[in-house]
């Protein structure tokens, strides 16, 4: 080891903190190097001189004096005191803080609409957006009912016989949503159905199935409740682009459906083909018999008129009730 290396280790050597091997090496070097040995002795002398300074006791009564001052110290405040003392300051502060928290929470609660309303609003926006000039998907002619986002009830399977199972809460909610969607708000660009003689066109402000937008009647040659006849009526509805409403109060004499307003005529044509009135008897139900109920005067609206675009304008869906007039049962000959 060199002298520099030895002197770097002298403090540890004097304090006996070296490992045995290094300690022996340093000791061996010191035995033969007067310079390093003198340095080691000086260092040891300094350490010993400081270590030999006497440890003095504090003055008499020191601890008593300390405790006297400690006892005079004010007691540390309790949690209650830290929170509420002084009352005249901290109570108003706490009250204001609580008011702010409650007000903020109430404001956030009020500002956030319920989920169901949000869904309905989004659906209405789809219809309303369409009413504002958005182009609807082109309909095939003829073809299956167009896929729309606003009539989830159209996807429901039709129960045999046209009768729907008992409505569930989900069905009711869907129907209420659908009813709001088909509401005729007379918005710009929204299709307004024309009132025709014998037909009734109603704005969709209904909240139940008692008031269809359109009422059609078809006279059939079949006996009442004939399943095949009902199936033909439903098929005619689908050919016209309508969608039966299984959640509606369908009976053996009525079929509820939704259809684009501009397809009502097509539906009429289809039903006319099913009518028992032969085509050579004009005036008597040339085509499906129209409902006997006179449409309210307030519901007279043009099917299509000047200024109303039927090509690009969004088409509203209407709810139609088809009433079936069954053939009278044949009386047996005596």
């Amino acid at each position, binding site marked *: 080891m060199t002298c520099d290396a030895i002197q770097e280790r002298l403090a540890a050597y004097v304090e006996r903190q070296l490992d045995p091997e290094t300690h022996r090496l340093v000791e061996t070097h010191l035995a033969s190097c007067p310079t390093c040995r003198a340095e080691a002795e000086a260092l*040891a*002398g300094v350490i010993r*001189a*400081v270590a*030999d300074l006497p440890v003095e*006791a504090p003055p008499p009564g020191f601890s008593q004096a*300390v405790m006297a001052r400690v006892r005079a110290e004010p007691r540390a405040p309790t949690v209650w005191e830290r929170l509420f003392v002084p009352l005249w300051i901290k109570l108003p502060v706490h009250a204001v803080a609580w008011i702010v928290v409650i007000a903020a929470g109430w404001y956030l609660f009020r500002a956030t609409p319920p989920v169901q309303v949000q869904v309905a609003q989004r659906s209405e926006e789809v219809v309303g957006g369409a009413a504002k000039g958005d182009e609807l998907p082109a309909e095939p002619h003829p073809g299956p009912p167009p896929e729309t986002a606003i009539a989830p009830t159209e996807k429901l399977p039709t129960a045999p016989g046209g009768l729907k199972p008992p409505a569930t809460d989900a069905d009711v909610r869907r129907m209420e949503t659908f009813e709001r969607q088909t509401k005729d708000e007379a918005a710009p660009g929204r299709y307004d159905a024309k009132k025709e003689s014998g037909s009734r066109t109603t704005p969709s402000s209904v909240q139940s199935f008692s008031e269809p937008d359109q009422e059609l009647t078809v006279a059939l040659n079949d006996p009442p409740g004939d399943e095949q006849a009902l199936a033909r009526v439903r098929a005619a509805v689908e050919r016209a682009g309508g969608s039966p409403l299984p959640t509606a109060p369908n009976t053996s004499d009525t079929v509820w459906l939704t259809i684009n307003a501009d397809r009502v005529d097509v539906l009429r044509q289809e039903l006319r083909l099913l009518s028992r009135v032969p085509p050579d008897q004009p005036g008597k139900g040339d085509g499906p018999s129209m409902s006997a109920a006179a449409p309210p005067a307030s519901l007279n609206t043009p099917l299509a008129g000047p200024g109303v675009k039927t090509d690009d304008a969004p088409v509203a869906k209407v709810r139609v009730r088809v009433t079936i007039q069954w053939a009278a049962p044949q009386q047996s000959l005596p």
Partner: protein
Amino acid sequence: MSKPGDETDDATWVQRVQAGETEAFDTLVRRYQTPIYNVLLRWLGDRDEAAEVAQDVFVAAFRALGRFRGEARFSTWLYQIAINQAKNRRKALARAATHVVHNSGDPENDPLDRVPDPRPNPSDEIERRQLQRVVQGAINGLDADDALVVILRDLQQQSYQEIARILAVPEGTVKSRLYRARQALKARLVPWVSSQRIRL
């Protein structure tokens, strides 16, 4: 000096004081009054100042005990308070220019001269006291941070790790300061060392 085994015992007394048992603080005072007083004595170089500051240290510790979470040893925390209090006092003394110089060699005015000596030989006693004055004077002449390290290490035998904790510096810094302090002391004490009055 508190021993490692006392750390748990310190924590027990600390908790009792924190729980509101003021008198329990007396145990901690009696346990640490001597080492704290001596650090202050050697660093400030004056008994009256050291006693006054030591009282302030314990009162300050009592006031702050509610915030002591036990993350460090109580002794480490107490030493830190002592050093902070002493630094403030050194600044005040420096401004007042009333710091007593103990390397004047005048036994009549040396506050550290009144140390009882158990050794029987009067000449050795005189020589020993003289050496103590010289050593204290040499310590007084050191840089404050270097002096503190040599007091904690060579006088109170604190470990490098504990000194690093007290001063909140790395161990390497502690060793550097200690080397510097010892070299400075050696320069002051060479006459005493070379005359072999200091035995290895």
